[in-house]
């Protein structure tokens, strides 16, 4: 077999491909991206256009997912909602990964009292029931999608920090890190050239799973009315309005609910697929 420089990715792909659930998850995730990016071109309707003559219509060829109590097309609102959910998922996880990685790196690399301080801080943060903490904080601020993303991010970095720290603790004892020290490499060079690239695989997994969690949290907040504010469509707030009509307009609750289910499931399948592919370790 000819070995090339892109070997890592080739082997990764080869193993990943065998896991059908993970591939299916990945395909759905990609599909969601395309849907949310192309939302305005896929549907002829405006997500906010009220149509008093067509309220609460059941699914039909014109309105695939039916219409809501204001005559808005539910399919349109669900795919526009996908955009919000993905945005929240990615920005929140981005913030969490950034904070978690920095704290994990510093904590694991320098150890000693720095490590103690950071890890006790992590313990303290983990004591709070995250969702209620978010509820309490959001209740004090005016509801905005940015606050939601930032707060989900600020309460979700602890797992990443612990993961990165654990990786750093084992990597910093490896001979190639010792070799770099013996060569007189600076701490920054050792951290960014030798430790970080080798510590990121578990973070990728945790980030993928984190996106699912963040989407779920955003949906829950929106469902409770303190997340994304109507008329901006979000899966959570479509569900909220759906619950008032659930006895005679099931489509209003079913489709956004399914969207949440499928999305979260896909991210989880993808994340666990990546985890299984990376372990046992690549290239050994």
């Amino acid at each position, binding site marked *: 077999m000819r*070995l090339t*420089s892109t*070997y*890592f990715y080739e082997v990764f792909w080869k193993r990943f491909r065998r896991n059908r659930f993970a591939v299916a998850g990945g395909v759905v995730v990609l599909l969601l991206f395309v849907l949310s990016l192309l939302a305005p071109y896929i549907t002829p309707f405006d997500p906010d256009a009220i149509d008093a003559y067509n309220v609460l219509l059941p699914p039909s060829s014109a309105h695939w997912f039916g219409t809501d109590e204001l005559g808005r097309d539910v399919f349109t609102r669900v795919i526009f909602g996908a955009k919000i959910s993905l945005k929240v998922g990615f920005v929140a996880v981005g913030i969490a990964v950034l904070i978690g990685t920095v704290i994990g790196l510093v904590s694991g690399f320098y150890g000693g009292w720095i490590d103690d301080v950071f890890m006790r801080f992590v313990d303290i943060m983990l004591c709070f029931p995250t969702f209620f903490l978010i509820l309490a904080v959001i209740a004090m601020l005016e509801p905005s999608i940015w606050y939601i993303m930032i707060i989900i991010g600020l309460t979700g970095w602890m797992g990443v920090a612990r993961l990165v720290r654990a990786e750093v603790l084992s990597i910093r004892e*490896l*001979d*190639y890190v*010792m*070799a*770099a*020290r*013996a*060569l*007189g*490499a600076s701490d920054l*060079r050792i951290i960014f*050239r*030798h430790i970080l*690239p*080798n510590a990121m695989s578990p973070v990728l997994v945790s980030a993928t799973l984190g996106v699912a969690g963040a989407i779920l949290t955003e949906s829950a907040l929106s469902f409770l009315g303190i997340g994304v504010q109507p008329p901006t469509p979000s899966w959570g707030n479509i569900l909220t309005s759906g619950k008032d009509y659930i006895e005679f307009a099931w489509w209003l609750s079913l489709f956004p609910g399914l969207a949440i289910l499928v999305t979260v499931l896909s991210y989880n399948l993808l994340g666990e697929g990546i985890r299984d592919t990376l372990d046992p370790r690549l*290239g*050994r």
Partner: protein
Amino acid sequence: MSHSLLETKALRKYFPAKSGAFGKSRVLKAVDGVDLRLDAGETLGLAGESGCGKSTVAKLIMGLIPPSDGAVHFRGTALSELTKEERFSFRKDVQMIFQDPFSALNPRMRVGEIIGEPLTIHGIASGTERRHRVLQLMAKVGLSEEQFSRYPHEFSGGQRQRIGIARALAVAPRLIIADEPVSALDLSIQAQIINLLQELKEEFSLSFLFIAHDLSVVRHVSDRIAIMYLGKIVEMGARDVVFSRLLHPYTEALLSAIPHTKPETEKKRIILRGDLPSPLAPPGGCPFHTRCPYVEPPLCTDVPPPLEEKEPGHLAACHFSHKLFR
């Protein structure tokens, strides 16, 4: 007065070891008073079984961990007295080769980057000049040009060890600490790597501290030999002297473990009983008395034998070496 290239003086490294949250803290005496001397152009073999503190000595000499007591002198200056700049330049003079060729190379860096990194760190070369130098080094250790942009996992253990050697050579060191450089390799590959190290030693007039648990390897490469047991040197001297007139029962036991090329010749095989005692609770008296076949209480069990010059240039730490080995 000219200084030795490297000298360790009463070098000690104690690690704190706690048993349980409320257990009393004890100390692990990994290295307990080691005096070594290494002259330019010389290879000193440091042998002993696993866990005797050989690798800790290597790390202390590299200045990767601070000693608990004693000092490492390089060209007459203690490492602890070096300024930041001098320390950085010391890193150019002393390099290390590692035991496990699989963990010694960063799996996310290409061979060219691994060997070129020392050049960048020390500002020796960059750009095409760096590439040129790296290719030269690769040729020196027997790697081919097209392997420049490959990743470590695409290589076998022996080839990886060559990469590690090229990385160590990149800064043109005076001294190389080789910590069990061949013990993870197949026998045939061991020979190749040892021969490579000896060629490089000649070509670049290097000095080696060669650490191994395999006495036959040490015997092959070393000018002088030091035998270590439980953090202490028990015998030291020129290779031929030590091997022909050994003065310590531990060395005798190690020697008897070397497989013989003529199996039909009857040979006394000394099998040591028991394991290496825990360095957390080293035995009193002579550290070897728990396993020594010639132990004679109470002297051996109570009085630690000093490392003495028993004959010119030949040191041993045994109360009865004059009686046992004549």
